[in-house]
């Protein structure tokens, strides 16, 4: 994509503005992107030509303003622009669940949401669960019950489990299985992941 010099804010201009260097450097430091006010979200994205906008979103309690291509998914922006690589992309087609995050209290595939649709949304990713070194009970349970094998689906499994526990603190085995059913695990560790979610419910 040619760098835009129009009235819109080009990605390169934006990067220069926040001081993150050349266009190839995809990681923008979170600190630089922190919006001064956490509560103020424009309800409208700033339209710029050829499919780019600045969006304001809240991720793990932090406000971000970031310029995105309209064709960038939330998963890509989390990983490539905000450096939150704990959200994995397994299929990029809404068919595996590795990219699951919690958006306004509901688990969704971040590969199947455009970042430009996320204005004003409150997003929780795997990085937002632990408080420093203190793990969320569901993370602790995933360690103790061997939730991760290869671990690539684990963030997604945990986020679906977390979304369940946020709405239903005492799920049954069947409810937990159904709540996780949008998360594939090719290592086949399904028993363990459900065990861990149920153990986390008990631990609360």
């Amino acid at each position, binding site marked *: 994509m040619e760098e835009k010099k129009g009235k819109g804010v080009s990605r390169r201009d934006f990067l220069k503005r926040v001081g993150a260097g050349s266009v*190839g450097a995809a990681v923008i430091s979170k600190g630089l992107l922190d919006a001064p006010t956490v509560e103020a979200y424009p309800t409208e994205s700033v339209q710029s030509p050829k499919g780019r906008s600045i969006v304001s979103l809240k991720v793990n309690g932090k406000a971000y303003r970031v310029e995105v291509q309209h064709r960038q998914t939330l998963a890509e922006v989390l990983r490539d622009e905000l450096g939150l690589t704990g959200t994995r992309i397994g299929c990029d087609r809404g068919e595996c669940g590795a990219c699951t995050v919690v958006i306004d209290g509901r688990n969704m595939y971040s590969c199947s949401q455009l970042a430009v649709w996320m204005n004003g949304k409150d997003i929780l990713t795997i990085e937002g669960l632990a408080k420093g070194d203190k793990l969320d009970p569901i993370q602790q349970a995933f360690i103790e019950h061997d939730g991760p094998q290869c671990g690539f689906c684990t963030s997604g499994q945990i986020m679906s489990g977390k979304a369940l526990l946020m709405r239903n603190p005492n799920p049954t085995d069947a409810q937990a299985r159904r709540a996780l059913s949008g998360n594939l695990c090719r290592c086949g560790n399904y028993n363990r992941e459900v065990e861990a979610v149920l153990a986390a419910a008990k631990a609360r």
Partner: protein
Amino acid sequence: MAQKEFSVVGKATPRIDGFERVTGKAEYTGDVQLPSMLCARVLRSPHPHAQILSIDTSKAEKLPGVKAIVHSFNTQVQWASGGLTQKRMIFNNPVRYVGDAVAAVAATDRYIAEDALELIDVKYEKLPYVLDAAAALKPDAPKIYPKGNLSVGDGRVTAPIKEEWGSVEKGFKEADKVFEDTYISKHVNNAQMERRVSVAKWDGAKLTVYASTQGISNARGDIAKALDLPLSRVRVICKYMGAGFGNKNQAQDYDMMAAVLSKATAQPVKLEFTREDDFIGMHGRWASEQHYKVGVKKDGTITAVELNAITNMGAYRKQSGDLTGCDFYNIPNYKKIVSPTHTNTVVAANYRAPAYPQSVYGFASMLDQIAFELGINPYDMFLKNRVRLSKGKSQFSSNAMEACIVEGAKRIGWQEKWHPPGASKGVKRHGIGMALGGYPFRLGLGAATIRVNRDATAHVIVGVVDIGTGAKSTMAIIASEALGIPLDQIQLASGDTDVTPYSIGESSSRTTSFTGTAVIAAAEDVRKQIFIIAAPELKAKPEELELKDGIVFLKADPTKKLPLAKAIHKVESEIIGRATTNPALPEGTDGKCFAAHFCEVEVDAFTGQVRLTRYVAAHDSGTIINRLTATSQVKGGVVQGLGMAFTEELLIDRPTAVPINPNYRDAKVPTHLEVPEIEVIFVDSYDPYGPFGGKPVGEPPITPSVATIANAIFNATGKRFKELPITPDKILRAVQV
């Protein structure tokens, strides 16, 4: 049994890298971000067989942000592990299947790289093609290689694959009855969650590749060979790996493509596969057509087995194409001819226990059917014919197959629950089934370095990659046990060829036995040095000392003791132990782990839907190093078998030769909702040659799972399904309400 008391081996130990795995901090290859890194995508052939006449990249090059385009006319790099019997390049001409790589583009972001693929103009001359393996062997079939479509050997492999002992002619004469039948299995993708990705960067003449590989050492060797570099100038790093199940071992084409693009642009390049690329661009399990002839006595005793089979290897031969499911039975007379065959389809190669589950499905179905026809309970049939001698002659280093069968049957309640096949009537029909499996246990080359620091902590430095098995944790546990230093005092360095010594690669279930044995030897080396240093402190001779739980003490008088840090306080730096080990089983002894699986199903005769209601997996894997991760391995193997039994098959559209379901949705990988609680039993077993008595765990569990489910469906319906996967449509056609 020569078992001993262990401190940490044999317990259920959470993974040492659990924190990183549950917080998202674990860095997988795709998470690597380097300054000024480019993104690359691959263009693939839309034709099953075609000569490329020209590739015009001029339009794509004009797209702002496009930095380099490589293809067969400007890049000749061999992909050594991509072709066992042919010289395969990273870009081939002619292309031989829909999905064969044609070009790769590096651009400033992935979207531009994808836009550029649309702008590359390739002129093809279509060639005749063949999709079906049996048809490919006919004399008039289109030839994919000059010598024909039977994959011929290059010295390393033979074709067809032949194995024979005893005399099948004699065995069939001795038989009371001879049965013949054909079983068919389909191409199933490994479908690991992490898509293939490679990040390459050059620092002067040195290449670093962040690979998603099961084996950093063999990946380094492959890359060095392909690009004609000294080993010292190739560094392969893989810290966390999102599984592969056999299709990410060694270096693959995308590693070389990333390296070439990085060289061409003088920028780091990340080459990512899409999920569709992943389904068609690498490989899945080979499909097979297995024709069995089995001679038995009236009491069910096998007298002879003859197997004639074709395996469909797709367009290139990466691995054996063998079928080894008869391994678990005592067969006095045996003859096998397997013909690995080329077709213009997606490549087939290693997927967890490559030659087993499809062939166990065929042979264990065969035996289950024979038991039915002879009026024998399958339990008695399998117990009677279980293997005692390997290949009709060799002893096993350990063999607890009988315990697997007995304990597994007891747990599921076989004697109470089994009923004659088809006896369950009505809409919901109950069935119970079983099958035997396992996997070779081998010994071989391993290396490890252990550094004990002056504060009594230790670093274990090994070249393993943890593909999800828990290998890092297993190595740390073995080190802790062998050193006598608590597990929480041990750090593991792994997955970086500039730092870590050789490891075989996490394939063929060898990490624990190959590298684990070296860890024990390196620990012995360190302990010797520790005892020499500690001896004066404890006023004893080195050989009189013992180290356990971080305490050095006199064997004869454990009250005379010192904490390790005190015992070695005079050391100013560290104590380093090293070992390269290459043990072998004695001549005439074979190694194997064993398994007997049992399950119950409920078949809905209205919908053809089968629900797996109970599953019991009994395993002989010798001493279990870590019960927690080993149990998970067994559960996972069963789930993969479940997918292969019920739903999974790569479908190639016949009229267009295009794969039509290269995605998780249509490939129908099992979800949470298909999987019951899988009950795992490790029977009491100790192998005198394995590390602490251990044998492999990773591959055995998938081997009997498909057959176990298929046999339970037979018990429920009275119908034998001779072709995988056993989908609702097949059941509906066979079962009337």
